């Protein structure tokens, strides 16, 4: 794909003595949602952290919007308009919800109109605006983590398992939020979403990549994978087998 916003080519990542990513090739097309699936320990989080420069790739290239970024520092990568919602959410718990959002708005001030839109997506953030973020429930923290990533327009948002440990109601809220974000085409936001929950993945994903053992083992259109139960079974079965 030539119109990929982000592409990883033969990415290897070592963490200490461990060789975690073993040649990841991944294309994230502009303007849609790409879902990264895979069993526990497949390397999904490591992939996102490598893109963000939080782990250094030992081999391979990462191209974002035409530039090779695999050697850049994390702040420099983030300044390329990439937002990151980590698996542990990365909430500043002693800061208020408001202060968390203020930091996410790199411009310095929060755009009121956009904030109104976010409050519509995640009403608890409005309720707890001045509370310490550490007092939020797990789902509310997840909302805050996503809200931080969308408070300013970004070209790419990396989201690591926003539904982990959440109740179905909140998962639905997340799906609604991501769909709404996707539909706001004029924002031109591309999302790379790590997700284990297949219904979430199917609901929001345009393209999909499946990882196993530090490599991409399948990639294609979400519609194809959703329609092909045999393929699903093969991929999921593979995951299950590998898991045991």
């Amino acid at each position, binding site marked *: 794909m030539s119109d990929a916003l982000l592409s990883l080519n033969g990415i290897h990542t070592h963490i200490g003595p461990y060789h975690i990513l073993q040649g990841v090739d991944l294309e994230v097309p502009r303007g849609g949602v790409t879902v990264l699936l895979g069993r526990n320990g497949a390397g999904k989080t490591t992939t996102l952290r490598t893109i963000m420069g939080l782990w250094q790739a030992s081999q391979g290239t990462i191209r974002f919007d035409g530039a090779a970024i695999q050697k850049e520092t994390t702040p420099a990568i983030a300044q390329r308009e990439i937002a*990151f919602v980590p698996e542990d959410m990365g909430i500043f*718990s*002693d*800061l208020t919800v408001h202060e968390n959002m203020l*930091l996410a708005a790199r411009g310095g001030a929060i755009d009121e109109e956009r904030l109104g839109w976010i409050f519509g997506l995640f009403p*608890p953030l409005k309720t707890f605006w001045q509370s310490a973020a550490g007092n939020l429930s797990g789902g509310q923290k997840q909302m805050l983590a996503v809200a931080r990533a969308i408070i300013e327009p970004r070209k790419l948002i990396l989201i690591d398992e926003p539904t982990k440990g959440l109740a179905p109601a*909140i998962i639905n*809220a997340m799906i609604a*939020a991501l769909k709404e974000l996707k539909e706001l085409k004029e924002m031109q936001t591309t999302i790379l979403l790590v997700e284990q929950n297949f219904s979430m993945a199917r609901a929001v994903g345009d393209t999909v990549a499946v990882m196993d053992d530090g490599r991409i083992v399948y990639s294609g259109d979400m519609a194809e994978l959703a329609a092909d139960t045999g393929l699903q079974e093969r991929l999921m079965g593979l995951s299950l087998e590998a898991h045991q």
Partner: protein
Amino acid sequence: MSNSLIKPRIERPSLSQIIEAKAPLFLVPVLMLIGLLAIGSGSTWLTLTAAGLAMGMMIFIMASGLTVIFGLMDVINFGHGAFISLGAFAGFTILGLLGGWIESPSIALNLGAVLLAVAFAMLVTGLAGYGFERLIVKPVYGQHLKQILVTMGGLVVTQQLIYVIWGPDEIVLARPAAFQGSFVVLGAAIEKYRVLAIVIGLALFVAMRLVLNRTRIGLLVRAGVQNGEMVEALGYPIKKLFLAVFMVGCALAGLGGVMWGMYQETISAHMGAEVMISVFIVVIIGGLGSIEGCFIGAMLVGLLTNYTGFLIPKLALVSTILLMGAVLMWRPQGLYPVVKAH
């Protein structure tokens, strides 16, 4: 979307939780009260209390930089004491040049001399901090054992540099005329210099709180203390913040050094290393990384040292160590534990 499904709920803290959370605030008044009962004489108590608060303020000034550096960068800087000494000597140099101002009876000239000495000391230690961070600390971020070794090495090197520049002997540092002698308040003699120390310490505490709570830099520092990685992922170059905070922390050590030198009236290359025992005790009592805790801890150490120094002089130093033990038994992470993400 499903608004109705997410019911926001605010947990109301119970009364005992509120008291538990605010308890450290009562420690200083309680200690003062115990001191009053033990000492008996109101005027003696007032003299000792002023002395204790002044000493506490100076220890706070020296400790505040150390605790912020630890909180943000996870660096235990055993070289911090070197900046205290360096600040004292830099201040001494300026006071020496301004001899006429110091001896003059004019309070304005006296104060001007002190302010210039303080400004120069902070400039010198801030710049020295720049070199220290780049050369010594930066290569060992995240490696605690190496940090201890290299910052101790930095301490020794800086002390030797002081020997080279100012000579190996203790030097007498005269206070400006206006800050010699005492006020008499309610029958109690209160040294003028102690009042100055209290005013400067309080001003610094208020200023630090304002910067931390009201400015964007302060917001970044508070966020960085909790989760530096996320600060970077939001696009802020935290290494630059580290350097800036390290320089400010060293400049504060320099400020504390001048104040402490004028208080002791003698300065030496190892004065910083000596006072570091109290500084470490204060930082541990307060909770590593907490400014509020550091402030309360410093007041407690200052007061306790002066009270026991009067009541049972032999116990003066031991008492602060006992205090630290007692605080840690009550709160193992110090008065105000700093929540870290990792």
